[in-house]
C-alpha cells in the first residue's frame, strides 16, 4: 500500500506510523510518500531523528549505538536526513532522547539543512535575474515566448497543431524559473514550522 503524506512534526509522524502498525501496516519505504507491507497488527514504537553524515563509517557507528540499545534502524541513509528507528527490545526506554533539548535539536538540524537549500536557490534566482533570464514581460505578453515563424498568422488546425506543439517549450522558456521562488517559499515555511516545534518541544513536560 502506498500513501502520500508529508510531515514536519516528528511526534505526529511517529504516532501515525504507530497507528498504521496497529492496523496491520508496517512502513518499508518513504522515498516518495510511504510504502507499507501487510503485517499482523502490532503495537510498534517508532522514533525519528534528523542527521546527515560525512562518512559511511560515521553513519554505521550512529546506527550501531541505537541498535546496541534496542532500536533498529529501519529507514534512512547517510545523507537522507530523517532516520527512522523501531523499538525492538522490551528493556529499552520508550524514546531515543532522554531530555527535551536533544529531542528538540533534531528540528534545528533539519532547519539548518533547509536553510542551506533555500539560500542556494536564492543565489540561483538572483543570478537568473541579473543575467536577464527572468522575463517578467512574458506574464503580460506570453506570445513572445513562441518562436515558431508564422505561428500567429496561421489559422485553424495548422495553428492549433503548431501552437500546442510549442506550448511546453514556451512554458519552459518563460516560467521554469518559478520553481526557485516556489521552493524557497516552501523551505521558509518548513523552517518557520520547525522553529515553532523546536520551542514547543523544549517546553514539553
Amino acid at each position, binding site marked *: 500500500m502506498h500513501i502520500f503524506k508529508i510531515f514536519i512534526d516528528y511526534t505526529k509522524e511517529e504516532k501515525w506510523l504507530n497507528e498504521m502498525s496497529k492496523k496491520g501496516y508496517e512502513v518499508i519505504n518513504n522515498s516518495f510518500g510511504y510504502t507499507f507491507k501487510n503485517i499482523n497488527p502490532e503495537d510498534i514504537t517508532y*522514533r525519528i*531523528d534528523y*542527521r546527515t553524515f560525512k562518512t559511511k*563509517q*560515521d553513519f*554505521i*557507528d*550512529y546506527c*550501531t*549505538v*541505537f541498535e*546496541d*540499545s534496542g*532500536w533498529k534502524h529501519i529507514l534512512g541513509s547517510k545523507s537522507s536526513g530523517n532516520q527512522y528507528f523501531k523499538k525492538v527490545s522490551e528493556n529499552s*526506554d520508550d*524514546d*531515543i*532522547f*532522554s*531530555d527535551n533539548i*536533544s*529531542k528538540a*535539536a*533534531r528540528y534545528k538540524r533539519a532547519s539548518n539543512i533547509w536553510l542551506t537549500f533555500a539560500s542556494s536557490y536564492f543565489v540561483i534566482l538572483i543570478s537568473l535575474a541579473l543575467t536577464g533570464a527572468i522575463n517578467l514581460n512574458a506574464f503580460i505578453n506570453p506570445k513572445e515566448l513562441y518562436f515558431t515563424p508564422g505561428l500567429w498568422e496561421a489559422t485553424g488546425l495548422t495553428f492549433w497543431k503548431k501552437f500546442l506543439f510549442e506550448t511546453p517549450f514556451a512554458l519552459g522558456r518563460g516560467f521554469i524559473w518559478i520553481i526557485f521562488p516556489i521552493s524557497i517559499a516552501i523551505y521558509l515555511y518548513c523552517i518557520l514550522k520547525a522553529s515553532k516545534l523546536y520551542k514547543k518541544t523544549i517546553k514539553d513536560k
Partner: protein
Amino acid sequence: MKRDKNLPLTETTFYILLALLERAHGYLIMQKVEELSDGHVRLAAGTLYGAIENLIKLKFIMPVPSDDKRRKVYLITDKGREILRFDLERIKHMAKVTEKALK
C-alpha cells in the same frame, strides 16, 4: 579568576567525561553512566550521540583507533580531564560550605 564558560558541567556531561577516563564506545558509555550515577542518569541513544558530537567539538574527548569496525571508541583528552577537575573543585567547595551551613 575567570571561570571557564563550560562550567558548571551538566550532570550528563560530567558522567560521560568520567566514563571516558577509560576508552569506551557509545553503548558502553550509556551503561557506565547509568552505573556511575546509581541509575539516576539514563541516557538514550539519540541524546548520547549528540552529547558525544558536542564533546568532540569542545575537544574534551577524542575518537581513538579500535578493532571494532562498527563502533567508534572514545577517550577523554587532557583538556577534558582539566575541566573535570575544575568542576570537581567547584562541587567540593559547594559541598564544604553547604555541610558547614547545615550543621
